[in-house]
C-alpha cells in the first residue's frame, strides 16, 4: 500500500521530482568533471530512464499521443466531423436501445428496499397467469414465514367521480400497499395496516397526485372531504406523492382498500367467493436471509394445504413462481426473441458506422503515407506508430461517444414527451453508471472495430489492399440491406392493416360491457336484463343490429386463446361465444353452412382459415371439432379481431350459453356515425339498473389503439433503416473518393490516352460492383432467414413479402449509386498534365 501512495505522490508532484533529479545529476556531473571523468551520457535520456522506475511513463506517452492526435484531428476538420457524426449516430442508437433496456429490465424501481420484493404468480405446467384469487392471497399472507410481508393490487372498471363525465381509474390495494412500496405522501395520510384493515371501517380513498392536481386544483383541504365514487360516498384520507412508483406498473387516479370492494360494487362477491371471485396480483417481501427458492418451496407447501380446503381453487400441479419484483418489466422467455431482434438491428447500425469509419480511416491512410514513412525513417518504432494511430481512433471514439450519449439522452427525452405518460414522474432518462459503462464499452469496441485494422496496416505501411475495401463495402451494404428490408416489411404491414379489409366491420360498432357479473347477477336475471337492453337499443334510431360476444373486442379485457397442434405446427385458436346476430353485426360473412341457433349445443362455426388448416382439401362442414366433438355447422370468413397482429390466428365460435350471459359484452351496430350513440346507450344501461357503471367504447378507437404499437415500431424501424442507409451512403462516398484519389495517375493516363468519360467511370466503379451485389444478396438472404421471427408483428403480410423486399433493396441501390457517382465525377475532372507532373 505504501508503495502505491509513494507512486501516486510522485505522479502528483512529478515536476518537482523531475527538477530534483535534474539538479542531482548536474551535481554528479560537476563532481565527475572535477575528477577528470566525462562519461555522463545523454542527460535527458538518463533522466528518462530514472523516471521509468516510477511506472508513469505510459501516462506521458498517452498524453503525448493524445495531444498529437488532437492536433492531427484538428487539422482535418472535414474528416473529423464526418467521423464523429457517423460514429455518434452508431453509438447513440445502441446507447438509446441499451438505455431503454436498462429502464425496463435492469434498473430497480424507486420503491422501499426493492431488491427484496418478489413478484408471485400462479403457474402450472399448462397455465400461466398473473391473477390469484384473493382468498389464496389471504391464505399465503396469513401463513407464510419466509416472506416478511405480502401485498396485492386488484384492478377495477373505471368509476364515476361525483357527477363528472370523465371516469376515473381505480385500483383496490391491500392496506400495507403504500407502506411496502415506501410511497411518500403529499397531503393527509396513506392506507395503514393498523387502521384500515377492517372491512367494516368507514370507506376511505387515497388520491393520486395527478388527479389531485387536475380535479381538485391541489387543494390541501381535500383531506377529510367526502367524494362519491359510482354514487358511493367515501372520505379522502390523503394524496400520494407525485413520484409514486409502483411494481404493478399501474398508475390509477385513486386507490381504495381492497377490503371495501363490496361497498363500492354493490352485490359483489369478488373478495369473498373462493372460485368465482376476483383475482389480485401479488408481491412478497423476502424475509432477511431467505432466498426466492426457499420462499417458493414454502409457498408450494401452502398451495398443497390450500387445496385440501378448497379443492376446486387449486389446479393440478399448481405452484407459485417468484420473479424479482422491482423492475418495470419482468423479462419473460417469450420476450427474448423480440429483444434480441431489436438488439441485432441496433448492432447492425453500429457495425455499418464502424465499417464506414474503417473505410474513411483507410482512405486517410493514403494521405498520411508520407508522414508515416518520414516518422519511421527518423527512428520511430512501428509499435509506437501503431499506438499513436490507435490513440487517434480512441480519441475519435470517445468524442463520438460523448456526442452519442447526448444525442441518445435528448432522443429519449423527446420520445418520452411524445409517447410517455405523465404519471411515471419518477422515471429518469439521465444515464446511470450502467449506461455510462455501456457507452465507454461501445466506444472501445468501436475503436477496435474501425481503428485496429487501419492502424496496423498503416504502421506496417501496407494499405493498398483493394480486398479490404471491398469487404467493408459488402458489410455496409449487407447491414443496410437488412435494416431497410425489415423497415420496408413493417411499413407495408402497417399500410396493410390500416388500409385493407380486416375481414370484419368495426367503424360503426359500439361495444358495451355492463359488468353484470361483477354486480352478482345470476343467469336468469342477466338474461332478462340483456333482453330488455336489446329491445331498448334496437328502438334507437339508426341501430341496425345488436349482438352478444363473450370476448370483449378491440378494447379492454383480456385475450385468451387455445394453442393446439395441427399437423405438427402450433396453431392459436381464438374462441368466442356469441349469439346468432353476431356475424351480421360484425360484418363477418358466413361463407358456407348455417348460422348458430340461440343457445345451441354441440355445434361450432369455424373460420375459413381454421377449416383449411384442420381439414386441408376436405369439406369441413359436418366434421367433428374440439374436445367435445362439436359438429361444424358453418364456415365464417377470417376475422382476427382478437389477434390483429398474428397472421396465423384462426377463430372458432360457439353459441352463448345461459351461464355466459352475465359476463357478455353487447355490440350495437348503427347505420350512421357511432359517436352519437354513446350517451344514449349509457343512459339506457343505467336506467335499467342504476347500480351498473357500464364500460362503453367505440370499436374503431380500439382498432386504432391496437395498431398504434405497430405504427410506432414501423416508424422506429424506418428511422433505423434510413439511418443505416445514410451511413452507408457516407461510407460509399468516402471509399469512392479514396479510390479516385488513389488512382489519380492511372486516370490521368487514361484521359491523356483519350479514354471516354464512361470508360473512366467504369474503371473507377468496377471494383465496387461485386461487393455491392454480394452485400445485397447476403442482406436479402439474412433478412429472409431472420424475418421469420417477425411474422407475429407483420399484421397480415408474409415475411417474404415482395413489396417490402423490393422497396428496401430499391432504395438502397439508388442511394448507393448516387453516393458512388457523386465523387466518381471528380475523376472526370482530373487534369492529366497536372496529375502526371506531381510525381
Amino acid at each position, binding site marked *: 500500500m505504501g508503495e502505491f501512495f509513494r507512486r501516486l505522490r510522485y505522479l502528483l508532484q512529478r515536476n518537482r521530482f523531475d527538477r*530534483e533529479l535534474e*539538479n542531482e*545529476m548536474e*551535481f*554528479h556531473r560537476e563532481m565527475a568533471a572535477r575528477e577528470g571523468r566525462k562519461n555522463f*551520457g545523454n542527460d535527458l535520456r538518463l533522466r528518462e*530512464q*530514472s523516471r521509468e*522506475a*516510477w511506472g508513469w511513463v505510459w501516462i506521458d506517452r498517452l498524453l503525448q499521443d493524445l495531444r498529437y492526435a488532437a492536433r492531427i484531428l484538428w487539422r482535418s476538420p472535414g474528416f473529423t466531423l464526418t467521423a464523429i457524426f457517423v460514429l455518434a449516430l452508431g453509438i447513440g442508437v445502441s446507447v438509446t436501445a441499451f438505455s431503454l433496456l436498462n429502464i425496463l429490465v435492469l434498473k430497480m424501481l424507486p420503491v422501499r428496499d426493492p431488491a427484496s420484493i418478489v413478484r408471485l404468480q400462479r403457474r402450472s405446467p399448462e397455465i400461466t397467469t398473473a391473477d390469484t384469487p384473493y382468498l389464496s392471497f389471504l391464505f399465503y399472507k396469513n401463513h407464510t414465514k419466509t416472506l416478511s410481508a405480502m401485498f396485492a393490487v386488484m384492478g377495477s372498471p373505471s368509476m364515476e367521480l361525483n357527477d363528472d363525465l370523465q371516469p376515473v381509474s381505480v385500483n383496490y390495494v391491500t392496506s400495507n400497499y403504500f407502506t411496502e412500496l415506501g410511497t411518500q405522501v403529499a397531503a393527509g395520510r396513506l392506507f395503514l395496516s393498523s387502521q384500515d384493515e377492517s372491512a367494516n371501517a368507514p370507506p376511505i380513498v387515497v388520491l393520486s397526485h395527478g388527479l389531485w392536481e387536475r380535479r381538485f386544483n391541489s387543494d390541501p383541504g381535500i383531506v377529510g372531504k367526502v367524494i362519491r365514487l359510482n354514487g358511493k360516498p367515501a372520505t379522502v384520507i390523503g394524496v400520494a406523492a407525485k413520484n409514486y412508483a409502483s411494481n404493478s406498473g399501474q398508475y390509477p387516479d385513486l386507490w381504495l382498500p381492497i377490503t371495501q370492494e363490496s361497498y363500492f360494487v354493490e352485490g359483489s362477491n369478488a373478495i369473498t367467493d373462493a372460485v368465482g371471485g376476483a383475482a389480485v396480483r401479488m408481491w412478497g417481501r423476502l424475509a432477511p436471509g431467505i432466498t426466492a427458492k426457499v420462499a417458493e418451496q414454502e409457498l408450494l407447501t401452502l398451495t398443497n394445504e390450500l387445496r385440501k380446503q378448497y379443492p376446486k381453487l387449486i389446479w393440478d400441479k399448481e405452484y407459485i413462481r417468484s420473479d424479482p419484483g422491482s423492475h418495470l418489466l419482468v423479462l419473460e422467455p417469450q420476450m427474448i426473441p423480440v429483444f434480441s431482434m431489436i438488439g441485432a438491428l441496433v448492432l447492425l447500425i453500429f457495425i455499418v458506422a464502424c465499417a464506414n469509419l474503417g473505410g474513411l480511416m483507410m482512405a486517410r491512410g493514403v494521405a498520411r503515407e508520407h508522414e508515416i514513412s518520414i516518422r519511421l525513417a527518423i527512428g520511430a518504432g512501428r509499435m509506437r506508430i501503431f499506438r499513436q494511430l490507435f490513440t487517434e481512433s480512441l480519441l475519435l471514439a470517445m468524442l463520438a461517444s460523448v456526442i452519442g450519449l447526448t444525442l441518445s439522452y435528448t432522443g429519449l427525452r423527446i420520445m418520452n414527451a411524445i409517447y410517455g405518460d405523465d404519471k411515471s414522474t419518477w422515471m429518469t432518462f439521465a444515464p446511470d453508471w450502467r449506461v455510462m459503462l455501456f457507452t465507454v464499452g461501445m466506444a472501445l469496441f468501436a475503436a477496435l472495430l474501425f481503428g485496429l485494422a487501419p492502424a496496423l496496416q498503416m504502421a506496417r505501411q501496407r494499405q493498398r489492399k483493394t480486398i479490404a475495401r471491398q469487404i467493408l463495402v459488402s458489410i455496409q451494404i449487407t447491414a443496410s440491406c437488412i435494416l431497410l428490408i425489415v423497415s420496408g416489411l413493417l411499413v407495408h404491414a402497417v399500410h396493410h392493416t390500416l388500409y385493407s379489409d380486416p375481414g370484419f366491420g368495426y367503424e360503426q360498432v359500439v361495444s358495451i360491457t355492463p359488468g353484470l357479473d361483477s354486480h352478482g347477477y345470476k343467469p336468469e336475471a342477466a338474461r332478462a336484463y340483456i333482453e330488455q337492453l336489446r329491445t331498448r337499443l334496437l328502438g334507437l334510431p339508426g341501430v341496425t343490429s345488436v349482438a352478444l360476444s363473450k370476448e370483449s373486442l378491440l378494447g379492454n379485457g383480456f385475450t385468451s386463446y387455445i394453442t393446439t397442434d395441427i399437423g405438427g405446427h402450433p396453431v392459436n385458436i381464438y374462441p368466442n361465444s356469441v349469439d346468432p346476430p353476431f356475424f351480421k353485426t360484425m360484418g363477418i360473412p358466413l361463407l358456407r353452412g348455417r348460422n348458430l341457433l340461440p343457445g345451441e349445443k354441440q355445434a361450432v362455426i369455424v373460420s375459413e382459415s381454421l377449416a383449411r388448416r384442420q381439414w386441408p382439401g376436405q369439406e369441413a362442414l359436418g366434421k367433428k371439432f374440439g374436445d367435445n366433438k362439436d359438429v361444424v355447422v358453418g364456415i365464417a370468413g377470417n376475422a382476427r379481431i382478437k389477434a390483429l397482429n398474428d397472421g396465423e390466428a384462426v377463430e372458432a365460435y360457439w353459441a352463448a350459453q345461459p351461464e355466459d350471459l352475465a359476463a357478455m359484452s353487447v355490440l350495437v351496430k348503427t347505420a350512421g356515425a357511432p359517436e352519437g350513440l354513446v350517451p344514449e346507450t349509457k343512459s339506457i344501461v343505467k336506467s335499467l339498473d342504476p347500480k351498473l357503471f357500464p364500460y362503453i367504447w367505440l370499436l374503431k378507437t380500439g382498432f386504432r389503439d391496437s395498431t398504434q404499437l405497430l405504427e410506432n415500431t414501423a416508424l422506429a424501424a424506418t428511422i433505423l433503416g434510413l439511418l443505416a442507409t445514410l451511413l452507408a451512403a457516407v461510407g460509399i462516398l468516402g471509399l469512392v473518393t479514396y479510390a479516385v484519389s488513389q488512382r489519380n495517375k492511372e486516370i490521368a493516363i487514361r484521359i491523356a490516352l483519350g479514354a471516354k468519360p464512361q470508360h473512366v467511370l467504369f474503371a473507377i466503379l468496377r471494383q465496387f460492383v461485386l461487393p455491392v451485389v454480394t452485400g445485397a444478396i447476403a442482406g436479402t438472404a439474412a433478412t429472409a432467414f431472420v424475418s421469420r421471427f417477425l411474422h407475429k408483428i407483420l399484421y397480415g403480410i408474409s415475411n417474404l413479402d415482395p413489396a417490402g423486399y423490393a422497396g428496401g433493396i430499391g432504395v438502397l441501390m439508388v442511394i448507393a449509386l448516387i453516393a458512388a457517382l457523386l465523387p466518381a465525377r471528380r475523376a472526370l475532372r482530373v487534369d492529366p498534365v497536372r496529375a502526371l507532373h506531381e510525381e
Partner: protein
Amino acid sequence: MPITHMPKTDMPPGALTLLILRVLQSGSLHGYAIAQRIHVLSSEVLAVEEGSLYPALQKMLLKGWVTAEWGISGTNRKVRFYRLTAAGRKQLQSEVANYDRVTEAIQTILRTA
C-alpha cells in the same frame, strides 16, 4: 538505436541495490558519494555507472527502502542525501543473507565439481 553504456566491470544483477543499501548503512550519502564509496571500497574494481545508479535509486525510493532529504555537500552545494529506512535495513539483511547463501552455494560447486 538507443545508446547504452556498458559498465567497466560487470556487476551481477541485483548487486547494485545490495551495495547501495550496504554503503548507506553507516549514514546518509548523496548520489555521487554513493558511487564514489562503492568505487573506493571495491579497490576501484567496481564502477557504478550514472545510468544505472539513478534508476536504481529511484526504484529504491519507490520501494520505500531509502528516503531523500536535502543536505549540503562537501563542496558546499545543496544536494539530495539518501538515508536508509527501517524497511531498507530489513531489505539489506535479507539481501545479504540471500547473497551469502547463493555465493556459498556457488563456492561449494566451484570447490567440489
